[in-house]
């Protein structure tokens, strides 16, 4: 892995340098559909947090799914 580290770092820097000149390919005036409430990834935060808690209290997995609360309310 160490052998590849400089190459990976160089690739990352080149990628970032290339991105600095990126023109947004979806213009602001083309984002009306993305702004529609049905495209929201979290339309109702209080409901999403509750469902995350329901699953988290009963499953081994956790994390990378947004918000979750502490404490119990379980088994």
């Amino acid at each position, binding site marked *: 892995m160490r052998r590849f580290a400089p190459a990976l770092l160089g690739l990352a820097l080149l990628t970032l340098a290339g*991105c600095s000149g*990126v*023109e*947004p*390919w*979806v213009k*602001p005036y*083309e*984002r009306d*559909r*993305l702004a*529609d*409430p*049905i*495209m929201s*990834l*979290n339309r*109702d*935060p*209080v*409901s*999403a*947090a*509750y*469902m*995350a808690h*329901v*699953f*988290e*209290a*009963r*499953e*081994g*997995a*956790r*994390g*990378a*799914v*947004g*918000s*979750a*609360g*502490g*404490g*119990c*309310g*379980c*088994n």
Partner: protein
Amino acid sequence: MRYRLHWLPVLVALIGIGGRAAAGVLPEDRADLLYHVYDGGGVQIDGPSLLVRKSFLEKISVVGNYYMDMVSSASIDVVTTASPYKERRKQWSLGVDALRGKTTYSLNYINSRESDYDADTASFSLSQDMFGDLTTVTLGFSRGWNKVRRNNDPTFEEPTDTRSYSVGVSQIITKNLILGAAFETITDEGFLNNPYRSVRYLDPTSGTGYSFQPEVYPHTHTSNAFAINGKYYLPFRAAISGEYRYYTDTWGIVAHTADFGYTMPWQKKWIFDADVRFYTQDHADFFSDLFPRADAQNFEGRDKELATFDSYALGLGATYEFPGGRPRFVQKGTLNFRFDHIWFDYKDFRDIRVSAPPGTEPLYSFEANVFQLFASIWF
């Protein structure tokens, strides 16, 4: 706390795929009042949740949440090794989002109290818009301080410490498609097992052929989760979404989660949601439904959340939008109902309510219904 594995008494900052607020724009001012009911596996839990968010000077947004669980439990763990119980958990949180240019800084604090478990968590996250606002990158850190107690033993109190590190990216791909990815590492240290729960071991001197002894868990636990998701706007006004998460931890659990959703407006006032969720996990290295003898291993657990199992969920939701103006400060409002049905099928956790030679009892399974009724207003 009782009869639950407490791994995550932590506010996992509003990062990741679902909960992150978009950088460059503060969240909308809104208030939500939700009533929730969970009923399954001998457990009933209900209670309210109130969330209020308000911005000031178009630069700062403050959010507060109060949440309560009222628990009545006669779960399989309770009826086989203890007595049914009732308890309450109360939680409140306070957060601040500050917008500066294309960067949003977020601070959150959460406090959870129940008779035998206290949890305090602080978190910080930073979201940055870049590349013409097509890309948003979010970094987050949270730290939790918890105290585990035992209701029947006033001298028992053990601490646990939790830290979470996360990074998330959301990317506009086309004018119809947005994709996201998130990675999160969570690490715990301290008393991580449930102070009430027991493991089962073969005991020829017992009438049932088995006896119980307290669980013993490792004092450290680190997990990694990676998730990707996407949402696509269909040619007509509707959207489909998908999400996948891969999970692994130092206790040997490997889990996969997949979720698919469909959102469809109807006329101008209604939005309907439907989604299916699949979850599967392998058991922890130190899990066994039936150990061969007492003190068979240095670490032993029989918590069904550590077992091998599959879970399936089907969810349906309906939202009705009503116009604002009454009272005048209300811009619009919604009434919402959501129902989820969840199936749990365990592969190596047995139902010992059934009398049978040890290790031959039927495998355990149960189903749960989850109801949510809530109202939201934007102001």
